[in-house]
């Protein structure tokens, strides 16, 4: 897969005139991460106690033609002490962008984000999740694409042709945050084209005063695998199965002064039973709390998925309550915390993220994730011993 990515990258670079890139600018970061696990491993093959990891993400940017053309290259690499599946490299971006008066064209490998809610991102589907990076699913793998944006009075229409599919990265048998047993690497696809299936997507977005609205559709290989237990001569295996799906999404945000109201809805067919899922709620911000410069936001969202009976669905009927504190100080100190609670059982997912800058170029971040898995066999039951405290020190340049 990686060699294929690099091949695509090189041919893109040749195609779009790497030779034109005379002088550009480099930026990026290098980071060291420590993960401490407060509980013993659940499976004998997993590592115990703690792990160290290093990551590196440089970015090269060059523009020409008065800024109407640009080239961006963002490789990424991580080394992990214990889990070889987490040690990986990726091309996050390798893209040529051309901007005209009422359209924009992107060719290469890029990242695209859709959506508005905080607790999960239902509508966001273009890029595969780089799940070994972080359990929150916010890290994404680069996706090869040809994308045309039409910028008109009636809104922005983004059209995507997505050649090739990336499998979700999953922890290996040595790693934490995994199913028991671990997911097999013999991936199965619904499409005969396997990971070369051509996917298509489009999104229309428009702003109506206080309302930001987006409607999207995706046809192609589901980014979310179904995990199929399969009996083999070697015993029980969990096989990832990627369906061909159709997904229609809606995302809406209404911004009324200190109130942000957010909704995401999806309708997906082709992945087992047709289903609908919803995330929606609000964020209310108190500005200048207790006579300081700090802002404090209260976030509440409801998460619903009508595949409620399927144990693989993490958030079928859950409530997220959280807070976001921005100190607005010179160090950009921030704190985000929240709890996702299942309405029906006692499953709770606790999350805390804090960060601040030291000097001009160092950023220290702390993350904590704690799981209290109510019933056995629930979506979190295999990671119920994976409570983690993570410290990361990054140097940006």
């Amino acid at each position, binding site marked *: 897969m990686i060699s294929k990515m690099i091949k695509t990258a090189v041919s893109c670079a040749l195609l779009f005139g790497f030779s034109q890139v005379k002088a550009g600018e480099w930026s990026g970061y290098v980071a060291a991460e420590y993960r401490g696990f407060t509980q013993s491993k659940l499976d004998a093959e997993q590592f115990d106690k703690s792990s160290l990891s290093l990551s590196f993400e440089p970015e090269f940017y060059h523009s020409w033609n008065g800024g109407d053309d640009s080239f961006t290259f963002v490789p990424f690499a991580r080394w992990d002490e214990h889990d070889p599946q987490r040690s990986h490299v990726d091309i996050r971006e390798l893209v040529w962008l051309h901007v005209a*008066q009422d359209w924009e064209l992107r060719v290469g490998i890029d990242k695209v*984000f859709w959506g508005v809610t905080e607790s999960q991102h239902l509508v966001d589907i273009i890029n595969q999740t780089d799940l070994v990076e972080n359990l929150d699913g916010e890290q994404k793998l680069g996706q090869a694409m040809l994308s045309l944006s039409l910028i008109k009075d009636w809104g922005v229409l983004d059209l995507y042709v997505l050649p090739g599919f990336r499998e979700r990265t999953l922890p290996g048998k040595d790693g934490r945050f995994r199913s028991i047993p671990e997911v097999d690497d013999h991936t199965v696809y619904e499409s005969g084209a396997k990971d070369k299936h051509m996917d298509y997507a489009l999104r229309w977005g428009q702003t109506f005063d206080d309302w930001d609205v987006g409607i999207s559709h995706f046809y192609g290989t589901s980014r979310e695998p179904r995990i199929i237990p399969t009996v083999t001569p070697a015993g029980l295996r969990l096989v990832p199965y990627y369906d061909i799906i159709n997904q229609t999404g809606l995302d809406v945000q209404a911004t009324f*002064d200190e109130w942000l109201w957010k909704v995401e809805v999806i309708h997906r067919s082709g992945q087992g039973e047709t289903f609908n899922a919803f995330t929606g709620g609000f964020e209310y911000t108190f500005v200048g709390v207790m006579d300081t410069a700090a802002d404090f936001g209260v976030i509440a969202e409801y998460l619903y998925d009508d595949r409620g009976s399927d144990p693989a669905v993490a958030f079928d009927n859950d409530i997220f309550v959280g807070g976001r504190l921005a100190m*607005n100080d010179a160090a950009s100190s921030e704190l985000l915390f929240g709890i996702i609670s299942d309405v029906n059982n006692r499953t709770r997912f606790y999350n805390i993220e804090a960060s601040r800058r030291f000097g001009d*170029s160092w950023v220290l971040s702390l993350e904590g994730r704690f799981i209290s898995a109510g019933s056995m066999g629930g979506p979190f039951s295999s990671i119920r011993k994976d409570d983690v405290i993570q410290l990361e020190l990054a140097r940006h340049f």
Partner: protein
Amino acid sequence: MKKLSILILILSSAFAYAQTPEEKGLEIAIEADKRDQGFADSSSKMTMTLKNANGDESIRKMRSKTLEVQGDGDKGLTIFDQPADVKGTAFLSFTHVLDADDQWLYLPALKRVKRISSKNKSGPFMGSEFAFEDLSSREVEKFSYLYLKDEAVDGEDAFVIEVRPNYKYSGYTRSVVWISKEKYQPLKIDYYDRKKSLLKTMTVSGYQQYLGQYWRPDVMVMANHQTKKETRLDFADYKFKMGLSERDFNKSSLKRAR
């Protein structure tokens, strides 16, 4: 004809005599606004130096573009270059005369455009002593005015007017502005907080005239009297009338702003 113009002269001077401090304050604000009209669009580079009470300094660098909008507040796009961890972050704002501004923030790590609450007018800009409202476009109708007196600042003749915000969520009850009689631009502003005590003083210097009309400063220094912190804002590379349009100030351009 001569009689008529004499009559007008008498009437208008009589009118001037009857002018209230409110009317004179408003008149100065309207004149300042009028003299700054027609720049169409502008851009500049900014370096912010934050200094705390101990004298420790940290630097922020950004670039900003402004599109003049007739009959409403201006549109602005700010791109952050430094510190390195926020490089590529960009901020889009559509300011309005009295309605809440529309604001979007682009977060490059997640490629996410977020519509944000504009209630943060009084909040610090990038951890500095400047609040968002100190740096946003000053439409005449956003404030009410009261002429106080004439007083020179460093030998430059100025009108002194009291300005009170008409919009919601300001961090100030009032400010006192020294407006240069020559340039019709502020030389100094004293800001009074919600408890009516003196919070900050901004001094503006190094004015240069561009395109034979528009005065822009090289330096703004904001001193906080309560925390003893200070922020110096240096401007460079002012450009005007570059042919920017609405197209350069939307969510698509925000996503690719560099």
